[in-house]
């Protein structure tokens, strides 16, 4: 049952081959027996899941089921879930039970999905390896001595290990796509504003976006259809109708102009990654797509610009964690300043503190122009580069990551070395564009991601191109040993 896709599970439930309660119990048991090896879950909501499954079975019996009714899934622990701990991977919120549901959570619940629990993540979504979580690192099911990527490491590992058929993730600088690449799953970051950010704990408000993590593009299309949509409660929500992502899935790609970025496919790219990406491009060419070389001349500035913009926005967003209204409070505060300083210092881990500090510095008097304003101008340049490229191609393709999953502890004391993991993903967030990472041929037994980037609100096209590759290849069907 755990090898079935969402589409297959939906058909099985409709045909009465199994019930939602059976399906949910099956995944809960897999989590119980297998997750100790991975640590991909922070909270498992057994009773709630079974209750939701029973309600789903009733809807199915009454003929009121939708495509996702009764199918189990898990939410990254960054989404507020009513009555359930929402920790954001941090000691700061270890004691926080959310009083409300994020919009993405209620939309998927309305679609009838059953929540198995909350997945592990880098603390406050800051990281590319899922090693900064207060709840311990997540391990990659392909090699448990290696990282699954981050920050949505738990969501990625759970799908790869078949502990959940689908999960939600968030992507600010690559946090859906990079772990999807390192664990061999499909992860989509929609256009900024496509999915509501209401109830999604904020890291960098102009970059954050929720998205599905699944094993196939078809499943991602199903999830996105339920997750996306205008929300009056999110003032950055796009007032744009949600497409039927399934309808466009099977369009042939002959004549599609595929842009390959000159600056990304340079001589220093790891040869294994390059070969894998080229195999995916070759498949598109085999199906009649045309390859065009495009240039993103300012792409090399995306990591520096991001490491000003994101920390600046995070320093502002995380100022709400002050020990006053919710979250961790230090013992016996002497005065208000002591309350703030000790609660925050005890509640936040080292990476979060680094980013708050950089952000505070970049926004402080005398430095705002040199750093934050400059970074926003670079952002404009990068968005302009993409507009120029999309005048010559329909989609842009690239590696998702510079390498395969690295060993736990590998990036040690070097934050910059970790930041460079996002070199192919970050420009997309700065420009607010949609992008998907799908599995390409593995290198030395480790997954590799192929990234497809689209112009704004082109999720349908991305899912279509990804689906056409997945129909003709089996790279996305590989299963890690032991799962």
């Amino acid at each position, binding site marked *: 049952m755990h090898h079935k896709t969402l589409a297959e599970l939906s058909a099985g439930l409709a045909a009465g081959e199994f019930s939602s309660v059976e399906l949910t119990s099956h995944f809960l048991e897999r989590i119980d027996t297998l997750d100790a090896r991975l640590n991909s879950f922070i909270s498992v909501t057994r009773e709630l899941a079974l209750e939701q499954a029973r309600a789903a079975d009733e809807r199915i019996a009454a003929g009121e089921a939708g495509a996702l009714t009764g199918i189990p899934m898990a939410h990254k622990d960054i989404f507020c879930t009513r009555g359930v701990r929402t920790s954001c991977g941090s000691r700061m919120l270890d004691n926080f*039970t959310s*009083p409300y549901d994020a919009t993405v959570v209620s939309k998927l619940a309305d679609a009838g999905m059953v929540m198995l629990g909350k997945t592990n993540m880098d603390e406050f979504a800051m990281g590319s390896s899922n090693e900064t979580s207060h709840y311990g690192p997540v391990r990659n099911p392909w090699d448990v001595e290696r990282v699954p990527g981050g920050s949505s490491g738990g969501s990625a590992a759970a799908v790869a290990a078949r502990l959940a058929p689908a999960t939600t993730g968030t992507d600010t600088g690559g946090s859906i796509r990079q772990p999807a690449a390192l664990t061999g799953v499909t992860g989509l970051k929609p256009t*900024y*504003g496509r999915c509501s950010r209401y109830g999604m704990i904020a890291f960098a408000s*102009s970059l954050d976006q929720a998205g599905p993590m699944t094993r196939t593009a078809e499943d991602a299309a199903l999830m996105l259809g339920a997750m996306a949509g205008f929300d*009056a409660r999110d*003032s950055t929500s*796009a007032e744009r109708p949600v497409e039927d992502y399934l309808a466009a899935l099977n369009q042939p790609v002959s004549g599609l102009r595929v842009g390959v970025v000159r600056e990304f496919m340079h001589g220093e790219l790891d040869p294994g990654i390059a070969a894998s990406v080229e195999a995916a491009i070759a498949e598109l060419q085999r199906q009649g797509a045309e390859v065009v070389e495009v240039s993103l001349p*300012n792409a*090399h*500035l995306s*990591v*520096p*610009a991001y*490491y*000003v913009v994101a920390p600046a926005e995070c*320093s502002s967003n995380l*100022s709400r964690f*002050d020990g*006053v*209204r*919710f*979250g*961790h409070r230090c013992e016996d505060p*002497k*005065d*208000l*300043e*002591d*309350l*703030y*300083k000790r609660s*925050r*210092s005890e509640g*936040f881990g080292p990476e979060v*503190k*680094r980013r*708050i*500090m*950089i952000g505070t*510095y*970049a926004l*402080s008097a005398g430095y705002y122009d040199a*750093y934050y304003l400059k970074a*926003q*101008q*670079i*952002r*404009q*340049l990068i*968005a302009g580069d993409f507009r120029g490229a999309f005048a010559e191609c329909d989609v842009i393709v690239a590696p998702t990551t510079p390498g395969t999953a690295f060993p736990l502890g590998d990036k040690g*004391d*070097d*934050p*910059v070395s970790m930041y460079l993991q996002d070199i192919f993903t970050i420009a997309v967030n*700065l*420009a*607010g*564009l949609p992008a998907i990472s799908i599995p390409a041929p593995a290198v030395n037994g480790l997954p590799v991601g192929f990234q497809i980037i689209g112009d*704004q609100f082109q999720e349908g096209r991305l899912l279509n191109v990804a689906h056409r590759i997945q129909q003709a290849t089996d790279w996305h069907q590989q299963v890690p040993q032991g799962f």
Partner: protein
Amino acid sequence: MSLQPDDVSKIAHLARLAITPEEGESLSRELSSILDLVAQMTAVETSGIEPMAHPLEMQQRLRPDEVTETDQRELYLGNAPQAEAGLFLVPKVIE
């Protein structure tokens, strides 16, 4: 760009973070190396380029001035570290 421990203390105070002297040392190294990464931006000429605050063309939406939320004070106070009589408690602020 090199940050001295003194700069680090000032930033920490602005961010309301308590930093030990050891943390101050390692932070000053780490933050300096991040600032070196960031310094790559200065190589590019950007005068006249409009800063981008937001990826979409959008205006702040307004809504009618009508009450839409319900009073859930007890529920929200449930997560408070210390609360009394419907208020959040903090150490004395004003002498």
